[in-house]
């Protein structure tokens, strides 16, 4: 695993010296700030039942759908396009270390970008001077949800990136998979046919995979191990498939 840290360190360094990281960060904060301002406006107009943090995190899918493809589409597709995967895999590095290193770097950046939105809440608490706006539990729960679901989302992105040498294709595949995962499952749960008795187990499985329900639980401060397992196993599965995908491309090239 020593190469994992070499690759992770290198990837993080490359992200930190790349101007595109900062452009992405600024734009992400601009969009999130816009959303946050909108939420505050609605609060100033009328009293609401839930805390602003809860509303804010309920919109997590918007940045996830755009940010994750942008963060991950490059990682393996670019190596394949440039051919540097060949020099990389002819050093004493295993495919697992390469995939995990790339995944780790993208995940760290994802966390950093989300962590920077914490400033919004700091500003709010500083200037609103009203403790009711800042309810620590949903805030912590929300960030915990972002951190844990991020594992799966980034892993899906890394997997898509391993499928193609074209970054745009990888990005679109990531977007589609994430859309299916976050929004698609929600629609699936509403299908009438699933209400019948025979398909009841299927319905239960779909309900279990409802990412929006997970968010609600986390926001209320409930950390369910089944949900942790969902994200951890999903992320592991996506990463294992990425490793297979990289190796299969070599076998059948």
């Amino acid at each position, binding site marked *: 695993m020593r190469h994992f840290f070499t690759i992770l360190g290198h990837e993080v360094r*490359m992200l930190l010296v*790349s101007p595109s990281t900062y452009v992405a960060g600024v734009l992400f904060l601009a969009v999130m700030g816009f959303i946050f301002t909108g939420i505050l406006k609605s609060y100033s107009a009328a009293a609401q039942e839930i805390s602003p943090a809860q509303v804010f995190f309920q919109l997590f899918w918007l940045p996830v759908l755009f940010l994750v493809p942008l963060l991950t589409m490059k990682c393996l597709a670019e190596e394949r396009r*440039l*051919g540097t995967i060949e*020099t*990389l895999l*002819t*050093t*004493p590095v295993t495919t697992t270390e390469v995939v995990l290193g790339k995944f780790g770097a993208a995940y760290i950046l994802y966390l950093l970008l989300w962590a920077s939105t914490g400033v919004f809440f700091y500003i709010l608490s500083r200037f609103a001077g009203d403790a009711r706006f800042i309810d620590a539990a949903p805030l912590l729960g929300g960030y915990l949800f972002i951190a844990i679901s991020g594992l799966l989302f980034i892993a899906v992105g890394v997997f898509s990136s391993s499928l193609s040498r074209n970054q745009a294709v990888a990005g679109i595949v990531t977007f589609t998979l994430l859309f299916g995962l976050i929004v698609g499952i929600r629609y699936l749960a509403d299908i009438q046919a699933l209400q019948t008795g025979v398909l009841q187990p299927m319905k239960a499985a779909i309900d279990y995979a409802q990412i929006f329900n997970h968010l609600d639980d986390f926001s209320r401060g409930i950390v369910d191990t089944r949900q942790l397992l969902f994200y951890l196993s999903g992320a592991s599965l996506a990463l294992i498939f990425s490793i297979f995908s990289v190796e299969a491309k070599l076998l059948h090239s």
Partner: protein
Amino acid sequence: MPDASTPAIEASHLVKHYAGVAAVNDISFTVARGEILGFLGPNGAGKSTTMRILTGYLPASGGSVRICGHNVATEGEAVRRAIGYMPENNPLPEDMRVGEYLYFRGRLKEMPRRKLSPRIDEVLELCDLKRVRHRIIGKLSKGFRQRVGIAEAILAEPPVIIMDEPTIGLDPHQILIVRDLIARLRGHMTVIISSHILPEIEVTCDRVLIINAGRVVAQGAPAELRRTILGQSLYELELAGDTDRLPTLLAGIDSTLAIAETGAPDSHGFRTVRLSTSRDDELGEQLLRAIAAEPRLRLRAISRAHSTLEDVFLAATRRSWDVIDEAPAAPSEPPAPQP
């Protein structure tokens, strides 16, 4: 545990199929430690594929390779520790600086930090890259990029270095630097290079392996190859007069001397006659004297054709095409890819 007496590279009966087409078809060769081997072949002959199999990047469809005694298929990691590889087209990351790239590669190759910095300085010096150490690789010219690739391959001082067309895109001055560099590795590192520049291979390599359509068609030292493939020295004469007298004249000089080819006479009545002989030593003077003594022949020019590796290469690859064309296609064998 493999010791120093095992050959650096042993490839036996390598086969690689791409979608039913055999890119590499039963290639076997051995490279001794410290030897420099040149890989020659027309485009699509299977050079790059063979090199990729040697590095363990591509699995072979059949056959086995041992690098310094380690089997490529089963001891991949030990093999990857023993090689420095520069792939075809020399892929490099676009957005890193030269020094950073070498540092990263050194770390991946498990070089200790303490030894890495002085080694990077040394390699930059060797490859004449000091000036561009802090430049971004994506903005370097082709020659510099190529040398960054070479620097990377020799960085960790592996016992085996495999370079796919290292001199492509270099100007003559840089080719000279690379040639010196490779010559300096002779004796303590095993080097395999492939190239299209035949004089290049002839100067640097101890041994040449010519492959065509996935098969080894010739191997040996350049001089040895010249003899076995072409089999003879060639003389070219420009003669006028009664050439019917020539055969008896030639028989008096050397029994193996024969007319290989006679051209049509030009406006002055001179025709080009090519003579071949299996003798290696110089026969020019005897030829001149014999023809000058014959009053019915007028000689305008005589030259000994020095066959280069290029002739050997052309002859060897043409010969194998002939073999493939003449052989009645066996129904079970897939058609050999024609470059």
